């Protein structure tokens, strides 16, 4: 019987495996790890092993997923491992459309096996669909159908990469915003599952566009428990909807909102909003360096803010500065 040895954790995997069953490393990618001076001891002539450890001081070398940046000038995304988790299970993607922009953030559920497989597959699938969608202006119904179709395609892709033996199949949240700019206003169409959020910031206020699919939010809607009781409950942050093989319904909640420009569109995982849970708090943090900050600088600063607060979770921030046209 031939097996594949994971070069990241040395576990034995079945010959046909693509991902390590034990640690989740990509069995193909790990074998071609870069050989650079060690980030810690920087010793000359010392090799980094194929599994990413310094052969002299033993320090684990950062992997690309630890800090992912994409900068497109007026929109950008930063995804960061944070200070506590050993892997970045968040993923996200951004892409220009002829009349606007699409932003996607997915947050892997850390209690599931290798949830980064879910978040990476989902964000990649969704952004590709948004890029391939017709360039011509779409009406709300068309965009809403696009959002649902993209989420269902992402769901199918996650099931494709899920191991049959997984008792906790990889799953993730998803929030996608498509902004279509027309003159002095924009139509924001957004779909989501779980507790990653989208915000619109303009005229001195922040507006939360999404409404968390979480135990806490459901209890608030029922109105039977006091807020303090809900917040103190260990289930408060449990999400009630998600993408993954064990999701009972992968159809996202979809909404539309027309906004006056200019303003800032922000999509993020709870690694950020946990440190600024209310709209006023979030507004103050986003504008802490003034109104003219570039999208990438703002996203990096927000990630640094979350890390300074403890970085207890992975942090992903996507930002688009929407300006009036014509």
């Amino acid at each position, binding site marked *: 019987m031939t097996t594949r040895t994971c070069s990241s*954790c*040395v576990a*034995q995997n079945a010959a046909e495996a693509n991902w390590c069953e034990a640690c989740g490393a990509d069995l193909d990618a790990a074998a071609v790890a870069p050989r650079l001076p060690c980030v*810690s*001891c920087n010793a000359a002539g010392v090799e980094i092993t194929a599994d990413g*450890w*310094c052969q*002299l*001081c*033993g*320090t*684990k070398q950062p992997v690309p997923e630890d800090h992912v940046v994409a900068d497109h000038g007026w929109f950008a995304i930063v995804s960061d491992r944070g*200070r*506590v988790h*050993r892997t970045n299970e968040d993923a996200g993607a951004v892409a220009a459309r002829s009349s606007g922009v699409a932003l996607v953030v997915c947050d892997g559920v850390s209690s599931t096996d290798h949830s980064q497989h879910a978040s990476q597959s989902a964000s990649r699938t969704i952004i590709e669909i948004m890029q391939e969608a017709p360039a011509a202006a779409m009406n709300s119904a068309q965009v809403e159908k696009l959002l649902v179709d993209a989420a269902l395609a992402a769901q199918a892709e996650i099931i494709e990469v899920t191991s049959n033996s997984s008792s906790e199949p990889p799953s993730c949240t998803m929030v996608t915003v498509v902004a279509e700019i027309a003159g002095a206003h924009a139509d924001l169409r957004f779909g989501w599952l779980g507790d990653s959020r989208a915000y619109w910031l303009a005229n001195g206020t922040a507006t939360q566009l999404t409404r968390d699919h979480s135990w806490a939010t459901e209890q608030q809607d029922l109105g039977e428990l006091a807020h303090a009781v809900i917040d103190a409950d260990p289930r408060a942050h449990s999400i009630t909807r998600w993408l993954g093989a064990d999701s009972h319904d992968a159809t996202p909640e979809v909404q539309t909102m027309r906004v006056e420009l200019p303003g800032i569109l922000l999509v993020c995982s709870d690694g950020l909003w946990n440190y600024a849970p209310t709209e006023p708090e979030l507004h103050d943090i986003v504008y802490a360096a003034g109104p003219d900050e570039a999208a990438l600088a703002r996203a990096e600063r927000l990630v640094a803010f979350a890390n300074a607060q*403890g970085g207890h979770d992975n942090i992903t921030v996507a930002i688009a500065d929407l300006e009036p046209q014509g």
Partner: protein
Amino acid sequence: MADFTAQVFQNEYLPAGGDTVDAVITVNSAAGAETSSSQGLLEIIIVDMSGSMNEDGGAKVRAAKAATGVAVDTLDDGVEFAIIAGTDRATQIYPRSGPAVADAQTRGEAKQIVNRMRADGGTAIGTWLRMAAGIFASRPNLIRHSILLTDGKNQHESDQVLRGSIDACVGLFQCDCRGLGVDWNVDELRLIATALLGTVDIIPSPDEMEPEFERIITGVMKKQVADVALRLWSPKGATVEFLKQVSPNIDDLTPKAIAVDALTDDFPLGAWAGEESRDYHLRVKIPAGNVGDERLGARVMLALNGQAEPIALVRAVWTNDENLSTRINREVAHYTGQAELADAIHDGLAARAAGDDDTATMKLGRAVQLAHETGNEDSVRLLQKVVDVDDPRTGTVRLRKQVADVDAMALDVRSTRTVRVGRGS
């Protein structure tokens, strides 16, 4: 050929500035396609024929002959073997020189000659070992194992000669040592067994020799690969504080390190059966990283036939989260307790022998408490022959006034046997 796998049990999270990484590593061998011994075996039986074996109306000599016969009968066809009689000299009884190959004829010849042996003379164990080493040296590619039986102390050569002989045998063969009766020295046989990667135990009475020899040979016949070593890489600036085998018994491997390069050591483990599992407790000190850093504490490899395969990683992650860094790993805690148990028994018996009853009571009481807590029922049973237990949970005990030598020796010699976490005895 056996395949080796490993599991690591550790809390990898260290507080800021923390530099000590503890891990329990379970190493398993899995039988390959071939089920029978694939490497070949040379077994040498070293049996004490000193004058004291004539005591008890010759029962010891008769039992030694019968047990040696059973050992020879238990060898598979094709296994190489030899028999040495030990007195103040060493005499190769069978065959005349070199090893014989086991078959019906050689087994018959060997048993006939063994039955004609006569006990006479003194005890010079180092000389016995050196004769065995000479035979083993001619068969470096076989699994090389011996049984050493003695009923007495090493009286006819100096301690220095014995130590020198043991040193000369290290790496040449493994040796399981058995002491018959109560007139032998536990520390002496433990010294040999520890250096030669073997076990030591007491055979209280002659009639227990046959089953014990059969049990040992049956175990040896299952060995498939010789000269396995655990290879440890640890980072620059690191110190291996200790590497102990902790299951099936405690054996400190730290002094046996053989440097491979500046950062890598080999620790010889001897021969392994096709399906065998042993646990090791590693403690390594490494330079502290920054909060958020992750480093290797050790890379664990299995070295065999000059090749090394990585089997496990011991990691360190620095964090400010006290919930993580203060977690106690169950396996590490368990074996730390088993090591303390062995030390408490050893210290308690030493104090008892020196007449320091207060220290003996305290140490053996602590031993009872630890054995009880960790489910080491065998140790509880052995301790109860030396102390009366009032309350095992608090370790409240009284020293027994009358303790048979055989019970104190059995407790001493078996004090390093451990149980696994949640797996009973």
